[in-house]
């Protein structure tokens, strides 16, 4: 199965890197959407369905925590698994994001295999 993924990060370089790493990892990516913050992500989600969202936390405009809140509050969008990609590996932060609805967490730095493993776990398909 090929997956549709939305990458949310204010850095175009980081979005490009995440996309490349997904491809390098062997993850079956069919379509990749990009957004520069939570507000842009919600706009994309009004017109496109995705199988997973990969989001940064610290972003100008709507940050990742607010995006998670908005997703959890939406009857349709809450079904989309959101995975946080962040440099912050503190337990407080990870616990708070889990409470807000994050279904996975990837700490930078990571290797392609780490990203694929979290996507597999989160999407619930060992044959991704």
């Amino acid at each position: 199965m090929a997956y549709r993924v939305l990458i949310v990060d204010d850095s175009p370089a980081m979005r490009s890197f995440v996309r490349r790493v997904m491809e390098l990892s062997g993850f079956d990516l069919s379509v990749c959407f990009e957004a520069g913050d939570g507000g842009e992500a919600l706009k994309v989600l009004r017109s496109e369905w995705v199988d997973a969202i990969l989001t940064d936390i610290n972003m100008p405009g709507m940050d990742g925590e607010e995006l998670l809140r908005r997703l959890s509050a939406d009857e349709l969008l809450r079904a989309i698994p959101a995975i946080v990609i962040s440099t912050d590996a503190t337990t407080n932060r990870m616990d708070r994001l889990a409470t807000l609805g994050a279904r996975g967490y990837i700490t930078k730095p990571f290797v392609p295999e780490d990203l694929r493993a979290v996507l597999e776990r989160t999407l619930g398909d060992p044959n991704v």
Partner: protein
Amino acid sequence: MSETPFHRALRDSVQEVLEKMFFVEPVEEPPGEAGSPDGIMAVQLAFEGLPSGVLTLCVTSAAARQIAADFLGEDESGLSPAKVEEVVCELANMICGSVLSRVESSATFRLASPRILLAGERPIRREAAARRAVHAVAIGSGTLTASMETRDPVCPQAAESVS
């Protein structure tokens, strides 16, 4: 002088971030003086939490271009200065977050946006810094120097003197 936990966290973070995210194998070298003369790109990033402080990265132009090319999977010749700066800012962000996650694994911190220092602008140095660590590596034909200082002790184990 023995290595402090703060130095170790900075060294390990620089190595791990460069290897995993930038596909670069850095070679440790003695740190030079941090600054932003011609041919050097300097980025500064403030952080708030326990501890608060500032990280400064000084990267030679050659190293910056190589890092950006490896990160983006593009040829160096096709990279604009803006793209190189963006990638170096992202590198600073990752190193800073990695160090803070190592020294304070349970406390939340907040990173400001990295800022490119203008030519001739000197990095902020806090004379009253509680802790200061510097780590330098050679990358291809260039070098990268990371220096980090905090206003507060970084963790109970890191109670050594400032170096």
